[in-house]
């Protein structure tokens, strides 16, 4: 049977098309017919179905995500906002940073190693496509219960995939999270973040201007990767059984991606790229429609020219293939030779597959026949938008009334400290981070176990002007808090990431986020989503940090049971003089320990309630953003003045865990005294708090600075010795803390 061409479609208007199998609603299909004035060809249907999918079109989330723009605080730092491959912020001295976090949840459940690896690969290409050199990655992970069987399958594979791909690219891994909760069994979350640097005047965008310019596909060849949907189409259109079983798993080739990085940077330096786009989900469909839609509006592509790994692929499959390690560039004809020479130097295959036109149409041919002829904007930008119904979950009120007030308080606080410290969520993550290269490129100022990762930037791009500046990044999120109150939970995620950046001495500047939720077709999930977005947008406005980009991952559920709503927030900050970074924890003996911020009895969603009682109920800690901002201001100013010898934020597990981790950082003990009720002082999870250590002679200046910013400052004690001593309450040798902290994950995962 011959290809389903435009002329054939015109002649067979009533031929049934498998739109439903491709996940399209009847109304959506009708709209395509209306746009085209005829039935779509198989290839056109392939394009519209992927471009209008939830993943590419954000059709369920768009109406809510708008708030990130409408409520955005004024920020002079924002150079490129939401809507591009990644946001770009001005970090001073002519430098800009671009960063983004993205999910690869479902593929990582199906094939943990490859799923996680290609998650890293995808986000790195997003950063490359902004014209930047990727300089580091982070990974925020959620798994089922640590002792559940499937976690033992998924976690080692995910970590190995991230490790292998990131290490091969030569990108240091500077932070992340590992969280266990039975709600993620069957739906692990793998959120990967990449940050890149570029000169402010070198930003690249995904545009295809200038009729006559060439469209170049470069990198790996195209194979039948991730085209489950397309195979339906191909087999339906071609009645060919062999296409029915195409694999859904994408396999990554980090070596090719490393070559692509170096190749792209040389292409940028040679100024032979007019527009560029990475190929991610929806591959060639997405790259061509988006490039064309943002340029002069027209493009002609000969699909026969796409280099194939498997020669049996048909146009629909080529259009939907998610083969990794591919990029598309728009190049002036005069620069083509130079472009190709650079690709050849890096052993990167490159092929001209079409050219930019001024017709306003995206036209594709196959064996000389026209198989696609569409206005590209209708696929790229004018997808359906849904205002989905939402309502508060039926059990929400009951959940919130089931407070932790009635839970038995522990008699033995020492035992409670050790129980929490060795619990999977609070235990050392070294089993994971030890598999990641944190040193490569020699720009890593802080990495695990620091609260935020930090990089110096002056040497990231050869030949650029030096600067003393550095950037810091942290990602945080707490599904239990968000389950109790998605509005507050999203704010608390932002607050924690903001605090983690500030404790290192960097000033928080901008935000990225990955919103992991259940099905948007479930009104209760949609309510959680809407609340979380509203909370995050409001908090960003109060804290003065704009959202620059992010990603939404829906359908994280098993049957009708969704995961806890899990907004993961990444914050990027800038430190003017990276030599003044504040290291984590107790860095020496004889230092004064101070607690900044106010503590009240807040145990809803706490690690204590979770670990000791398996309880989730009540309300999460209060998100006091004004207090958070004041704390941040104190930390940044104190670091600037060189007052801080060490610091650590308070979060999961409260003061007790922060003290223990601070001792573990360098093996230095401390003796502290509490002023309030010991259990609350030690285990409450009140937000907006941090521990700092200062030389004794600096304490008064710190206290005065805190007073000025209305941040409570309590002298707790001094560092030194080989034990953590909480006077009249508990005493634990640092070595015992260490054994408890480091033993858990190796015992679970080998």
């Amino acid at each position, binding site marked *: 049977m011959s290809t389903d061409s435009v002329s054939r479609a015109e002649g067979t208007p009533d031929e049934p098309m498998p739109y439903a199998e491709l996940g399209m609603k009847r109304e959506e299909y009708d709209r395509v017919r209306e746009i085209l004035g005829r039935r779509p060809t198989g290839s056109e249907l392939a394009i519209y179905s992927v471009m209008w999918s939830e993943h590419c079109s954000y059709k369920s989330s768009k109406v809510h995500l708008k708030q990130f723009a409408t409520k955005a605080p004024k920020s002079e730092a924002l150079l490129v906002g939401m809507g591009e491959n990644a946001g770009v912020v001005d970090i001073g001295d002519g430098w800009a940073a671009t960063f983004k976090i993205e999910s690869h949840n479902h593929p990582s459940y*199906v*094939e943990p190693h*490859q799923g996680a690896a290609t998650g890293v690969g995808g986000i790195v290409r997003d950063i490359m496509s902004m014209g930047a050199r990727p300089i580091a990655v982070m990974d925020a992970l959620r798994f089922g219960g640590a002792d559940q069987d499937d976690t033992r399958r998924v976690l080692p594979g995910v970590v190995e995939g991230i490790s292998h791909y990131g290490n091969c690219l030569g990108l240091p891994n500077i932070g992340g999270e590992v969280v266990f909760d039975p709600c993620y069994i069957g739906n692990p979350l793998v959120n990967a973040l990449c940050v890149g640097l570029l000169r402010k005047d070198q930003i690249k965008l995904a545009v295809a201007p200038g009729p006559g310019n060439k469209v170049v596909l470069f990198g*790996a060849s195209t*194979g*039948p*990767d991730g085209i489950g949907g397309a195979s339906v189409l191909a087999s339906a259109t071609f009645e060919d059984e062999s296409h029915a079983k*195409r*694999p859904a*798993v*994408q*396999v*990554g*080739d980090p*070596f*090719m991606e490393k070559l692509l990085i170096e190749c792209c940077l040389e292409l940028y330096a040679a100024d032979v790229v007019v527009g560029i786009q990475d190929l991610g989900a929806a591959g060639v469909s997405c790259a061509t429609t988006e490039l064309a839609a943002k340029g002069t509006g027209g493009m002609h592509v000969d699909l026969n020219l796409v280099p194939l*790994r*498997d020669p049996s692929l048909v146009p629909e499959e080529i259009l939907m293939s998610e*083969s*990794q390690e591919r990029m598309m560039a728009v190049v002036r004809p005069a620069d083509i030779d130079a472009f190709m020479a650079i690709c050849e130097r890096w*052993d990167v295959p490159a092929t001209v597959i079409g050219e930019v036109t001024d017709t306003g149409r995206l036209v594709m041919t196959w064996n000389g026949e026209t198989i696609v002829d569409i206005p590209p904007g209708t696929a790229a930008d004018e997808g359906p938008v849904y205002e989905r119904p939402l309502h508060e979950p039926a059990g929400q009120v009951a959940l919130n009334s089931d407070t932790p007030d009635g839970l038995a308080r522990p008699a033995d606080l020492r035992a409670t400290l050790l129980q929490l410290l060795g619990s999977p969520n609070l235990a050392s993550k070294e089993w994971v981070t030890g598999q990641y290269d944190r040193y490569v490129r020699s720009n890593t100022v802080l990495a695990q176990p620091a609260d935020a990762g930090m990089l110096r930037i002056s040497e990231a791009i050869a030949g650029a002007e030096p600067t003393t500046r550095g950037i810091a990044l942290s990602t945080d999120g707490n599904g239990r808090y968000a389950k109790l109150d998605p509005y507050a939970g999203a704010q608390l995620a932002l607050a924690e990431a903001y605090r983690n950046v500030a404790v290192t001495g960097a000033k928080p500047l901008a935000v990225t986020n990955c919103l992991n939720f259940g099905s948007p077709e479930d009104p209760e999930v949609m309510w959680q989503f809407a609340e979380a977005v509203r909370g995050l947008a409001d908090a960003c406005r109060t804290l003065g940090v704009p959202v620059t980009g992010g990603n939404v991952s829906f359908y994280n559920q098993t049957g009708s049971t969704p995961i806890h709503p899990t907004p993961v927030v990444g914050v990027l900050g800038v430190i003017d003089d990276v030599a003044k970074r504040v290291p984590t924890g107790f860095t020496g003996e004889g230092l004064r320990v101070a607690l900044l911020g106010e503590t009240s009895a807040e145990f809803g969603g706490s690690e204590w309630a979770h670990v000791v009682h398996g309880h989730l109920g009540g309300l999460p800690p209060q998100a006091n953003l004004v207090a958070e901002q004041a704390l941040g201001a104190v930390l940044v100013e104190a670091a600037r003045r060189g007052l801080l010898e060490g610091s650590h934020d308070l979060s999961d597990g409260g003061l007790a865990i922060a003290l223990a981790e601070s001792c573990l950082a360098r093996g230095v003990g401390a003796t502290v005294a509490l002023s309030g009720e010991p259990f609350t002082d030690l285990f409450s999870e009140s937000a907006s708090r941090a521990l700092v250590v200062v030389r004794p002679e600096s304490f008064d200046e710190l206290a005065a600075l805190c007073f000025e910013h209305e941040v409570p400052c309590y002298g707790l004690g001094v560092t030194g010795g080989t034990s953590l001593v909480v006077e009249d309450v508990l005493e634990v040798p640092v070595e015992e803390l260490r054994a408890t902290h480091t033993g858990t994950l190796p015992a679970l995962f080998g």
Partner: protein
Amino acid sequence: MARVIVDVMLKPEILDPQGQAIARALPRLGFSGVSAVRQGKRFEVELDGPADEAALADVRKMAETLLANTVIEDFTLRVEG
């Protein structure tokens, strides 16, 4: 005391970056006449007893659940000797 060989190869439609890298290197090393290389794994499983049907069924199960990742790999068994 029998030995069963389990050969595990990536499914044909799955990208094999290792095999590709080797194939690309060959001409540079002066080898011509090779059109493709695929790299897989080979396991030698030593049995305590003979390779009877029950034992082979066991090894097949082992291959399916542990030695091969059947999401992306195929395997074959054969008794050696």
